[in-house]
């Protein structure tokens, strides 16, 4: 059976600069790198989904994907070849939701090529101290794998809405230009681990796999303490869980794909290898999917 695969991955990792990069710049840089590494031209992208949550100036309309589409010059005019651009918001698992949707559209025969971008930044002039995070961007081009079995396995989303209040991100509209307020309760990591345990077991079960069949687990780099507890929670040995938290902070929606890029660059993943991707986000939702390279 043909599966959806990551045809190309581009990232814009956290960086130090005199002037902070905007969310738009991170998304566009990641998108350009992704397109540069792809066999597809911008005009081939039929659907562009932005899954980033935190945007420059807290703009909520139009879809940020429209700005990215414009900057990447993807079928920006009406008529001729067309692209639909929209935002998908679901906290840290948004890129997984977007990949899941594009997989469905491809299997339904609606599209051949889709692109997912995400970027995160807090551009507040005086950011709330608890609401800061490393700015970054990531982009994927997805298509149907030419080889049977390669690509994404079954997507599993474990949502526990009773924990919805453990992670909230709102823009306080009282001050001029608004202020981002992100609140994480102490029990959040426990909820991620509980959801992760269930989601991983379900993802492996649906694909008929055992933990020993997976070469590397690539989780969201939530924190060193989370990565320390994760292997036991999901039933994997510590050495099979990619931990880059020493040099890669939590970057929210982009985290798994920044870590995937690091793992590929380090040679831990490549053709013939099988990965398990694990994302965590508000909701509380934990998403898991296997990936055959």
């Amino acid at each position, binding site marked *: 059976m043909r599966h959806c695969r990551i045809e190309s991955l581009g990232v814009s990792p956290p960086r130090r600069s005199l002037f902070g990069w905007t969310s738009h710049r991170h998304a566009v840089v990641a998108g350009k790198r992704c397109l540069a590494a792809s066999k597809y031209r911008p005009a081939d992208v039929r659907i562009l989904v932005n899954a980033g949550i935190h945007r420059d100036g807290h703009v909520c309309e139009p879809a940020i994907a429209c700005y990215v589409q414009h900057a990447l010059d993807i079928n920006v005019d009406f008529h001729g070849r067309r692209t639909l651009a929209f935002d998908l918001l679901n906290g840290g698992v948004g890129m997984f939701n977007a990949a899941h949707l594009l997989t469905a559209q491809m299997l339904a025969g609606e599209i051949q090529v889709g692109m997912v971008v995400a970027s995160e930044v807090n551009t507040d002039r005086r950011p709330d101290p608890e609401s800061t995070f490393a700015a970054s961007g990531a982009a994927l081009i997805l298509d149907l794998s030419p080889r049977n079995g390669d690509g994404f396995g079954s997507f599993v989303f474990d949502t526990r809405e009773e924990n919805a209040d453990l992670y909230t991100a709102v823009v306080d509209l009282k001050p001029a230009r*608004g202020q981002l307020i992100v609140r994480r309760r102490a029990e959040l990591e426990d909820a991620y681990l509980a959801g992760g345990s269930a989601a991983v077991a379900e993802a492996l079960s649906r694909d008929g796999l055992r933990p020993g069949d997976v070469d590397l687990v690539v989780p969201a780099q939530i924190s060193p303490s989370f990565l320390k507890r994760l292997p036991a929670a999901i039933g994997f040995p510590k050495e099979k869980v990619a931990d880059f938290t020493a040099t890669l902070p939590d970057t929210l929606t982009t985290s798994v794909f920044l870590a995937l890029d690091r793992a590929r660059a380090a040679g831990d993943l490549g053709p013939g290898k099988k990965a398990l991707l694990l994302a965590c986000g508000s909701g509380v939702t934990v998403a898991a999917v296997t990936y055959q390279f």
Partner: protein
Amino acid sequence: MPQKIKIESLGIQLPDKALTTEELMAACRHRPRLDLEKLTGIAERRVAVDEYAADLAVGAARKALAMSRYAPEELDAIVCTSISKHHRPDEFSFEPATAVLVRRAVGAKKALVFDVVNACAGLLNGIWVLQGLIRSGTIRCGMVVSGEQNMPLAWTATREVRHSLDRQLAALTIGDCGAAVIVDGSTDEKSGFHWLDLVTGARHDHYCYSKPSARGGGGILITKARGLQIVGNANFPAYLKQALDATGWDVNDLHHVIPHQVSVRAIRQGIKAVKSYMGCDLPDVFLCHAEKYGNTTTASHLLALHDFMLQGRIQSGHNVLLVSGASGIVISHATFTLDDLPERYRAHVNGRGPG
């Protein structure tokens, strides 16, 4: 032939309080000299009192479930497409997704949940997303829901509008409403969605945007209305014709066209643009009730469907074309033939009083 999807159930949460355009204009600190009611044709809109965007979404979702054959726990997906995520006073919520809050409120324990945001085209975009999930066999049925509490943008405009050409004037045309549909696969070839298409012309992404105000509290909606209308009217008729052609209809096959209810004037200008493109007169099939409810953004099409079904103008078996233009600029069209939804909806609503 790909599987068709259909609207299985509909729910509308319309606030009771009406606010006239005259009352809204009187609330402006610097009242513009123009006659906004005459210019737009909008006489009043509904205003949510003591309920917020998430409450409107939950109310609409509960009403859609009340007439549905699906129980909450049978829903495979909930997609929330609201633009205005004002779930508490003076706050705009990005996380958790509003769909999570709807899932929690209605008890849809196994539903896949996420938000899709694409300005006023969001609801059609959400239906398009569910169409793909249903056609691929990923899900069997799902809900698209929007809770639009737009009035905070209008209140900011009453504080910040300075003159008759102010770019926040469009914020004075919006209103509040919640809307939800449950969609599933159509069981017959005749009814359901025949065509559903969205396209983004991102070169025109600068005509309309919303963000927190730099001048004080609240959010603002900035619209270059004339430019938006010129670009939209220059481009959407070709896509409308394409939707008709792809469905195998001509204009005489249409029973109703439901445009996005931006304003009475904008709808009239849109009709002129279509006439000019088609080079012929059009039958009187364009439905407009913007004078009563203003622009309810993503809830607009479903509110019109609700209103005209209850009036008895939309009947079972009718062919309907939905037309939407949204900031981005996103142009979207959908053609569908109704099954027995209008009869079921009237029986349901009349059986328990107006919704």
